[in-house]
């Protein structure tokens, strides 16, 4: 079914001046699709419009006037974690995330107020304590004052990478992300619970950072008949793994939890430092509860070190098998 008939013709008067400069790069995309096997969003939602090549086609449609901007198209363009697995692996060299950022800016200029994977701040809950501000390596959060000298935390929707570090750090729970991309705390909790309830043989939950390890973890997302004593859950940065998630895993019967993050100096968000501090504190809490602290294991892996990850998991599972399950009365203590 042709949209307008014949070859492309530009009919929209809407301006996409930033995006238009990318027309040549957009033409280079041959739509081979090699980008989407690496895309965590596609792996979660499985729609063609979630793929990097799909988003590029939408932007192409917008700049050529073939399609009109809409809230739904905006949502797709604002859904990206900027892990750059797509552009780093595009042999045609299409700078996917740079193009997305310009399309975001164009849409914002046109008055579109979309959410995507960008964080939102609930002004009623936010005390403007400022804890979140220095956390963001991309300076996507700032404190602004209005004319009445009222302060509030604002989000730069172009710069926000959707890593969710600020979400897990906000003491008031005022920062959230939209559900639907398996990144919110309730969604991650549900994932942990489902994994452990559906497979009683699972001994360990492994939280693996999307940035350092996702390309090597295709199998974990794929259907397979192989049963493993662990389940890998991909998180957007190790800094996103909050203590509640780990305790939740213990409550649901996990013998241990491993967090696999980027090595120091290599994290795109500096979330690994926060993870390290957080897990030291959590291990101390476990000691108080008479739970062996080594049930929590933090290890660093660089991009593509999936072989090293496999070995570390095997070693960790052996350790857990020596420790055995957490005793029931301790479970009760965690549950309160």
């Amino acid at each position, binding site marked *: 079914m042709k949209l307008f008939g014949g070859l492309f013709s530009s009919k929209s008067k809407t301006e996409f001046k930033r995006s238009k400069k990318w027309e040549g790069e957009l033409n*280079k995309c041959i739509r081979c699709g090699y980008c989407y096997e690496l895309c965590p969003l596609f792996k979660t939602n499985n729609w063609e419009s979630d793929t990097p090549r799909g988003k590029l086609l939408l932007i192409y449609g917008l700049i050529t006037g073939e399609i009109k901007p809409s809230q739904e198209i905006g949502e797709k363009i604002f859904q990206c974690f900027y892990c750059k697995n797509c552009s780093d692996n595009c042999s045609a*060299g299409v700078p996917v995330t740079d193009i997305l950022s310009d399309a975001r800016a164009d849409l914002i200029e046109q008055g579109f107020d979309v959410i995507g994977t960008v964080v939102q701040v609930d002004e009623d809950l936010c005390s403007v304590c400022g804890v979140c501000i220095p956390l963001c390596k991309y300076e996507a959060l700032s404190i602004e004052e209005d004319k009445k000298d009222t302060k509030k935390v604002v989000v730069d929707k172009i710069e926000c990478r959707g890593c969710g570090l600020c979400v897990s750090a906000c003491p008031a729970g005022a920062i959230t992300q939209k559900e639907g991309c398996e990144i919110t705390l309730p969604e991650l909790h549900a994932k942990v619970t489902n994994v452990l309830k559906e497979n009683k043989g699972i001994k360990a939950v492994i939280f693996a950072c999307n940035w350092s390890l996702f390309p090597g973890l295709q199998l974990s997302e794929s259907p*397979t008949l192989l049963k493993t004593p662990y389940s890998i859950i991909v998180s957007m940065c190790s800094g996103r793994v909050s203590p509640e998630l780990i305790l939740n895993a213990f409550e649901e019967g996990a013998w241990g939890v491993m967090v696999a993050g980027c090595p120091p100096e290599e994290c795109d968000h500096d979330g690994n430092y926060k993870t390290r501090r957080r897990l030291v504190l959590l291990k101390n809490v476990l000691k108080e509860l008479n739970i062996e602290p080594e049930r929590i294991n933090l290890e660093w892996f660089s991009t593509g070190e999936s072989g090293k990850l496999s070995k570390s998991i095997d070693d960790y599972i052996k350790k857990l098998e020596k420790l055995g399950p957490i005793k029931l009365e301790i479970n009760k203590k965690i549950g309160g």
Partner: protein
Amino acid sequence: MNIDIDKLRNIVGKENVSDDIADLYVYASDASVHHSLPSVIVRPKTIDHVQKIMKYANENIIPVVPRGAGSGTSGHTVPIDGGIILDMKLMNRIIEISPQDMLVRVEPGVVDDDLNRALKPYGLFYPPAPASSRIATVGGEIAANASGVRSVKYGATRDYVLGMKVVLANGDLVNLGSNTRVHSAGYQLERLIVGSEGTLGVVVEATMGIVPIPKYRCLGVANFENLEEAGDAISEIISSGSQPSMLELMDKVGIIAVNKAMDLNLPEVGAIVMFEADGNVKSAVDFEMKKMKEICEKHKGSDIEMSYDIAERTRLFSGRKKLFASLSKYKEGIICTDLADDMGVPNSKISQTAQKIHEIAEKNNVIMAVYGHCGSGVIHTKIMLDPKKKSQWKDAEKVVDELYEYVHSVGGVTSAEHGIGLSKAPAWKKARADIIPMMKSIKKALDPNNILNPHKLMDAPDDWVGATNLRYKVGA
């Protein structure tokens, strides 16, 4: 066209139906140059879903286009008349792996590489993997009779299909083929579905043969000053009785492109030939490699590297693996298009066909890369052009016509492993006018209302450029 979206939502759940332009616009295209909007996207998860959707579509004469990864290069899944895109990716379970029977049963949305990862611990593999195996689904591979780099030894998809469950246009479910390696019980209907490009039925389950992973694999790479010698070396390797498990060609255009895209620093010679042998006995693999090396040397192949090491083999092959996408980096302003991209020619015609391709390209103001699984007679080309110039599309039309005329004149075939779809249909119909009535009769018998992927293969328009929108903004 009136489509009851609520009815479809009732069948598969509202989360698996979309008629939003954000989805329609991206499902309008695959990896081809074509673009045409569907009316709705539906994602079935069970055989029952597919049956209900087909029954509804048949009763209401609504086109249905089954779709896997959308990696087809000739517009197979581009819905000319709109209608329903049946996105099969959610039917992605590996149902059974049977090492005893040496077969797997899979749903059509299973990704080729995922299947091979699951098979690896059993020491088994599913060989026909196309270069796009990282995303290509088994269902799509069946629809196109896909093959790949190892098909020179292991064959194409059709050689592994033992049986399948297919939902017909009217919603009926049929079991075709068997669970045995061979059968002689009536028409080989499972083979009829292979290569049918979604026009005869929707594959909802496939039983495929699998083979053991060989213990040894050795890859060699040889540089050639000119394309002619490289082509002749390939032809001689095949006619000498050698048994390569891979025999690939990459011309200078391809070498320059991958050097630019991946900083590989390959020598920019006339052509590179990659040859591989595999087996369980190392001395046998050594024997094959030595023989192929000597043939390459005889044809002035130089700087020959050979390795059993997997890391080294991956390095040597990395340029070829990503060549397709790299071609857009060849020259600024010129992009890579998938047109006339997978001809098959007899073994004796490889060298002259490769040279002819460059001759036709030069004559018509476009650049063409020549590469492919030439050991099995598959020659891949990509037409590289300025997509904004209308005149370049005219040039491309001429190239496609001339190229196919030549290929058919030497006894070759329009498509060796990607399928006909839209853009290859005019040339193929011209060359195979004799079989078109038979194909139309089969189609009419199985899909009397012509709802399954209409206007493809024998029913495709004669003007591939005008058949749909092109997915590029073309100027005057």
